């Protein structure tokens, strides 16, 4: 199998590391060669962050280059748009519709762009945009956005339900398990 590439993007501090950990665990369990590349350090302080997840028979580069991603999973709308050039033509975007203003917008030096989901679609991407924050809150914890997104992402994989459930159980601490399983369900059925 040729290497598949998923980018997980968002704002530093939103918790994308759990999403990549869970995907890595799941893909390893399916017998793939896997590489996951993370960002630590300065960018984690509210900056734009990206995690690369790649899997296949034999993965070489740990990073995804422009035009290589099969899917972009985004915790925030502007970040999905920012990394769009990394998506393959016709690739899938799964994004939270939440908008977090970056500092240039807060200071008035720039404006938060409008209708980003529509613009991404016009640029040729398939866009699945859902309000993950509300669904996470409905599940019982605003921080469960990552599981809502993964639930949604599960539509685009052929893995059986129990594979996802097993990965969630392996990667999420026991006391948060119920909330996160619910968040996954809500995302999946949104």
């Amino acid at each position, binding site marked *: 199998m040729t290497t598949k590439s998923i980018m997980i993007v968002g*704002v530093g*501090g939103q918790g994308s590391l759990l999403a990549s950990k869970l995907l*890595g*665990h799941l893909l*390893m369990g399916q017998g793939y*060669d*896997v*590489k*996951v*590349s*993370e*960002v*630590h*350090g*300065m*960018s*984690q*302080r*509210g*900056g*734009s962050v990206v995690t690369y997840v790649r899997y296949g028979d034999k993965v*070489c*580069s*740990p*990073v995804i*280059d*422009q*035009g*290589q*991603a099969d899917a972009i999973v985004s915790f925030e709308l*502007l*970040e999905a*748009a*920012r990394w*769009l*050039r*990394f*998506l*393959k*033509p016709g690739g899938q975007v799964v994004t939270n519709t939440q908008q*977090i*203003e*970056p*500092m*240039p*917008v*807060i*200071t*008035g*030096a*720039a*404006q938060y*762009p409008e209708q*980003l989901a529509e*613009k*991404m679609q016009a*640029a*040729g*991407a398939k866009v699945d945009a859902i309000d993950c924050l509300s669904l996470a809150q409905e599940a019982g914890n*605003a921080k469960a956005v990552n599981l809502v997104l993964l639930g949604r992402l599960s539509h685009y994989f052929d893995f059986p339900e129990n594979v996802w459930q097993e990965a969630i159980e392996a990667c999420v601490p026991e006391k948060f398990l119920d909330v996160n399983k619910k968040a996954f369900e809500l995302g999946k059925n949104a």
Partner: protein
Amino acid sequence: MKQLILGNAAVARGLYEAGCCIASSYPGTPSTEITEEAAKFPEIYCEWAPNEKVALETAFGASLAGKRAFCGMKHVGLNVAADPLFTMSYTGVNAGLVIAVADDPAMHSSQNEQDSRHYARAAKLPMLEPSDSAEALAFTKLAYELSERFDTPVLLKMCTRVAHSQSVAELSQRQEAPVRPYAKTPQKYVMAPANAVRRHPVVEQRLLDLSAWAETADVNRVEAGSDKSLGILTSSTSYQYVKEACGDRFPILKLGMVWPLPEKLIRDFAAQAERLIIVEEGDPFLEQYCRGLGLAVQGKGLFPLCGELSQNQIGEKLGLPRHVGSALTEELPARPPVMCAGCPHRGLFYTLSQLKCTVLGDIGCYTLGAMPPLSAMDMTLCMGASISGLHGFNKALGQESQGRTVAVIGDSTFVHSGMTGLANVAYNQSNSTVIILDNSITGMTGHQQNPTTGLSLRGDPAGKIDLEALCKAMGIARVRVVDSYDLSACRSAIEEELAAEEPSVIISRRPCVLLKYVKHQAPLSVEKDQCRGCKACMKIGCPAISFREGKAVVDATQCTGCGVCGQLCKFGAMKEGEA
């Protein structure tokens, strides 16, 4: 057992499996997790040293005593540790000594893009360079074998994409390394001139021996390719990009040891390809070596000196099809990193910006004080330079600068390299005002303990430096503490100490808001009727405050209730939340 493992964790696993007993390091992205992960093995004593020089000397001492030792740092840390490094090359080791140094091409979290390979050549030490987690683990173990076999410290060079990428590695059991009894050997370990003169030829011979080893070592391997129109010499993560871009098309000489280099292996490889291409990030290190051999090569003529390489870049230069995506046509607002909501540094930097101070900064989260709207930083150079730089600035300008110029430095950075600068202020008497931003942790690298926190790397009770007593003992009579959440107290402290006719230290003390033990207050909210839309609260650059329909809005999910914004509102519109 196979495991998906972070590059840095794989190095830690390598330390464990190789029987390493002692690790002393200073945190620095992208190297930090090596020592943090090593600390999860009870068999390895792990500590955060005050700086990289101390860490390396500690590891050397442990090696001298006969136990396998380790020291980890980021690329700029090796500048600090360079002094012991160069002479350790002469003494050699007793038990194995491995030094990991992590470069940061593209400067994801660094102040420069220096290429650590030059240190291996300059200090005449072997350097291994893994390209993924499996190699990170294997090369760490190999490094101990080489260290003991060739009587040398061994450098293990990581980079961000190897350190911070997870890939699959095979784990095995720990093999205890027998303790090598210490025996007094002054001719080897006392590097006074008479002994050092005799050791230098030993170093030169060792390099020849290591070069001979490198000719046939498994870590330097030729991979066959069907198209001999060119051959590629590469190492590290660049090798992975080459494989991604070219697959098995061209022959590759993949180097696992980048110093010393195998001359014959490289010459033979070059002879069987029509054109030799060198793919390396950073400086033309391998390229210049090959040019020195008289080989015709292409390297930095094709690939950039600055930043990271990528598979697209390599493919394009080699005439292969590149992947193209479609971006939005409009320019999107950037999202630079920012001080967190509730960051204790914010109030202090706001005050410095209001007072229009010249601020000589340092290395840590507080470098973010340079970003708009605070824009309260004039210089950031290296660990500790704020204080020594301020001393020089004030010596140069005297009255003109000393009443409006300050140094800002974090608690960990102060102990790392700021204390010596303060000694210079006290000794050579400049009227300097130094602000220690004491957030009770090493913040930027992800919360490591340090000598001011009273806790060890593993979180156990440890010695604790009393910063006030230390500054006084160094000869600074004016030492005071402020709470950075209290804007008027910050202002009067800075104004008074700048006005004083002698050196002073202000300790701005409040723990990092992200520390687990720090209790957040209920989030503030805006009374819409009272908000006049004056944007005074926006001047502190808090990511939790935005502006909608002419009024300020507080994001309750981010606000920690620090109350700094409330002190700026003249109309009482910022309401404290109810717990």
